[in-house]
């Protein structure tokens, strides 16, 4: 068995690195984080010609400085893990800039292979590259490829296997940066080599170069020997003064100039251009899509199209999933005996997790649409067009990606949204974005809106949804503005960004991107939300009624049924309390139209009453045919049923008030009364902390309707409509409060991972505060205006 070969894939963002990685590893990918940092590490092992090759996808970088986390991670991986080969993926259509990173790998001395990707695009733009010449001039093997269509992948792997067999060594390949710098490098590397702390992990020449580039990681390392550190610092200072005086440039800039000079020297020899065929479709498309007037209109159209597509495509699958979960509920109801266990499974587990999983299609199609925008290059244009607007609010053009993923056009999820903030380099801009993305209308808030809009604003569903989308952006942007003017105050950042050429996305790329984000959503349902649903269920169940209360309710119920059975109209037709369940069942079936109750059987009186009651209940007017005694008994029965129903609701509400959740909900009323929320709403909002969709099911339970099935959501909606405590103003206040109040627990955990517990905690407090303030204003203004 041969030794395992490790290769590191590196390259600029947009060089097609992910495509190459996917093409090599296929489905055999693993994702982890680099130790101690939140930079994603993707890796996978494949077999090629009898060799095991482990492929590690380094973060996309333009350079190898110590100034960004990604670059440091990439550099440290190469230095510390010593992969057998580094494969630098280079975009053939803009060779010069992409070779800048390759030059830096050469400086470091790693065994390097250049994967010359996007050969097709280069050709279509009239750029002809002499691959052989490039290889000999640059001093590294070059493999031409078109990763999108799998061309050249096998050649690359062949090359990797044959090169690794030669056991390549690290050989720094110095280039010249002009006399002054070269001399300083020689001096410093001499000093380093003489020193005792030189560990030979890095080439001394490279270390000297990094000292002149003022690379903090390397200079800090050398300062462990104070005398050495000072000696080097003196040289660096003097060369800095010298170049500033003579060339008006810092050494770092001169080094970069020479790198580009070196590259230009090579490309001059290996690149030929056919002027006549230089058609750049991307530039032509941009003339239209970023045009002053057409640009914004096209953007609105695209976003609206995405929104419509998502909701259209996910409509049926959502119904299928709902049916599936209803079926599951039905099975549990049939198999598991009534009691605590059944309640736990139905309300706690299926209610909570099913509610979340039910939205997977919506989330998935939204992420698919977002992946199309990202992979085609259009998302970069949106960031470009909106940068000026977002900057005014203290955000960055790239914040828009995180905001859209989190539900900016309705129906995303803040968990992948939090991860999408990683593209923001400035920590303050990033935290500001992190703190406002929970305001977006994620997929989980939509059922809450749907319920309340259905009950109180049924006429203008689309308009209200549009207003809510607009509101969430307004709140997010102004909150960001406030944050950036106060606790996240910081200097202006930059928008130095590449506009990648437009490309048709590949299906494989789209599916992988969609799945990665959707999986994060599903994972939250399976772990965090499952746990919290169970906890919430327990909080809403225990301790419940005391034994004395139970006995009292039982006594009252018995008294009611005795009074019913002993009334003169009923006596003789229904004799015993034992007949009541059968009667209830018959009436229920008849009313639901499932079966017409026969009038035969061993208890004809009961059957007749049931039939009469069902017709009365359905508002049947043709009652002439009925014997009056049955009709009287039936109306007695219906009155009794209402009484019992009321009694049961009182019992359930008393029980709910007696639970932990009820206790908290009632305590919170002191605070929430100005918003018009009573304890049941408070309990629901408490549940929403696990996941916003839980608000609906919890409201359902709290309003004594038992399980909230899709069909019954309508009845919850009806019930809220009839409840005297509810009106459109109340509903709207709750909608806005739900939009703003807290990130769900899964988001809080993600924020903690990306930032810290302190930021995650702050995020909860900040959102609560904003939600409370805004809802209070809406409520009080609404009351003052007489709504």
């Amino acid at each position, binding site marked *: 068995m041969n030794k395992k070969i490790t290769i590191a894939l590196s390259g600029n963002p947009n060089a097609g690195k992910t495509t190459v990685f996917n093409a090599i590893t296929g489905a055999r990918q693993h994702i982890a984080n680099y130790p101690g940092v939140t930079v994603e590490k993707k890796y996978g092992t494949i077999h090629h010609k009898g060799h095991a090759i482990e492929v590690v996808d380094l973060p996309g970088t333009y350079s190898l400085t110590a100034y960004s986390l990604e670059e440091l991670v990439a550099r440290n991986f190469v230095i510390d893990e010593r992969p057998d080969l580094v494969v630098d993926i280079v975009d053939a259509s803009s060779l010069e800039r992409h070779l800048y990173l390759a030059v830096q790998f050469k400086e470091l001395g790693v065994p390097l292979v250049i994967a010359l990707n996007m050969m097709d695009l280069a050709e279509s733009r009239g750029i002809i590259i002499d691959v052989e010449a490039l290889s000999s001039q640059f001093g590294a093997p070059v493999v031409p490829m078109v990763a999108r269509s799998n061309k050249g992948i096998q050649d690359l792997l062949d090359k990797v296997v044959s090169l690794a067999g030669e056991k390549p060594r690290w050989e720094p390949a110095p280039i010249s940066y002009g006399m002054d710098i070269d001399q300083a490098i020689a001096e410093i590397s001499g000093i380093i080599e003489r020193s005792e702390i030189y560990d030979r992990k890095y080439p001394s020449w490279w270390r000297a170069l990094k000292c002149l580039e003022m690379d903090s990681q390397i200079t800090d390392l050398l300062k462990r020997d104070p005398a050495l550190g000072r000696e080097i610092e003196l040289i660096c200072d003097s060369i800095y003064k010298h170049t500033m005086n003579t060339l008006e440039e810092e050494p770092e800039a001169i080094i970069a100039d020479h790198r580009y000079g070196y590259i230009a020297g090579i490309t001059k020899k290996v690149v030929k251009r056919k002027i006549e065929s230089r058609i750049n479709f991307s530039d032509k498309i941009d003339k239209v899509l970023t045009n002053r007037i057409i640009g914004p209109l096209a953007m609105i159209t695209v976003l609206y199209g995405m929104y419509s597509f998502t909701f259209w495509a996910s409509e049926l699958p959502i119904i299928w999933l709902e049916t599936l979960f209803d079926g599951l509920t039905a099975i549990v109801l049939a198999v598991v005996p009534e009691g605590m266990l059944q309640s736990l499974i139905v309300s706690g587990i299926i209610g909570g997790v099913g509610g979340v999983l039910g939205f997977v299609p919506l989330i998935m199609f939204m992420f698919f649409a977002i992946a199309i925008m990202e992979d085609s290059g259009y998302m970069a244009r949106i960031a470009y067009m909106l940068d000026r607007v977002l900057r005014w609010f203290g955000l960055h053009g790239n914040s828009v990606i995180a905001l859209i993923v989190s539900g900016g056009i309705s129906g995303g999820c803040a968990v992948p949204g939090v991860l999408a903030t990683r593209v923001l380099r400035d920590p303050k801009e990033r935290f500001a974005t992190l703190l406002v993305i929970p305001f977006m209308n994620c997929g989980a808030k939509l059922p809450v809106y749907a319920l309340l809009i259905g009950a109180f604003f049924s006429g203008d569903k689309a308009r209200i949804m549009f207003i809510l989308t607009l509101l969430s952006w307004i709140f997010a942007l102004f909150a960001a503005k406030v944050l950036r003017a106060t606790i996240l105050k910081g200097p202006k950042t930059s928008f130095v*960004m590449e506009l990648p050429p437009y490309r048709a996305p590949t299906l494989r790329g789209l599916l992988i991107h969609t799945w990665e984000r959707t999986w994060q959503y599903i994972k939250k349902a399976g772990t965090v939300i499952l746990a919290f649903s169970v906890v919430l269920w327990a909080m809403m169940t225990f301790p419940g009624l005391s034994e004395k209360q139970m006995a009292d309710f039982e006594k009252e119920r018995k008294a009611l049924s005795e009074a019913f059975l002993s009334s003169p109209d009923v006596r003789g037709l229904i004799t015993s309390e034992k007949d009541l369940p059968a009667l209830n069942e018959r009436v229920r079936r008849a009313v639901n139209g499932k079966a017409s109750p026969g009038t035969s059987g061993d208890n004809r009186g009961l059957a007749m009453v049931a039939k009469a009651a069902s017709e009365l209940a359905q508002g049947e007017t043709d009652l002439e045919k009925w014997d009056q005694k049955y009709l009287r008994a039936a109306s007695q029965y219906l009155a009794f049923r209402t009484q019992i129903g009321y009694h049961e609701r009182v019992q359930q509400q008393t029980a709910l008030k007696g639970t932990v959740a009820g206790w908290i909900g009632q305590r919170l009323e002191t605070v929430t009364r100005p918003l018009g929320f009573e304890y049941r709403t408070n309990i629901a909002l408490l549940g929403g902390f696990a996941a916003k969709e839980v608000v609906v099911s919890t409201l359902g339970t709290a309003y004594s309707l038992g399980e909230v099935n899709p069909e019954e959501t309508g009845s919850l909606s009806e019930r809220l409509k009839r409840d005297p405590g509810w009106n459109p103003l109340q509903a709207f206040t709750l909608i806005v409060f739900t939009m703003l109040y807290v990130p769900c627990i899964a988001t809080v955990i993600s924020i903690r991972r990306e930032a810290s517990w302190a930021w995650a905690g702050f995020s909860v407090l900040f959102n609560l505060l904003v939600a409370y303030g805004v809802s209070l204003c809406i409520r009080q203004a609404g009351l003052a205006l007489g709504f």
Partner: protein
Amino acid sequence: MKKVIKMREMSDNQRGIIKRITATGDMGRRLREMGLVPETAIKIQGRAPLRDPVAVKLRDFVLTLRNNEASSIFVEVDVPDPE
């Protein structure tokens, strides 16, 4: 006639050669690693709808910059000779 002006002052589709970049520190580094170094040929590709950022074509790719960043880049451009 040749004249050196700030990149910010260039008009859409105008071409020029970078002569000097005054940005230092992290900003300077960002610009350099994206290939904005003296003697690079550039062309103003266009501007965002609100006239900021600006899109610049150089080395066969398109780069965006905010106006204040474009102010630190000095570009030699052709200007018509005064009659």
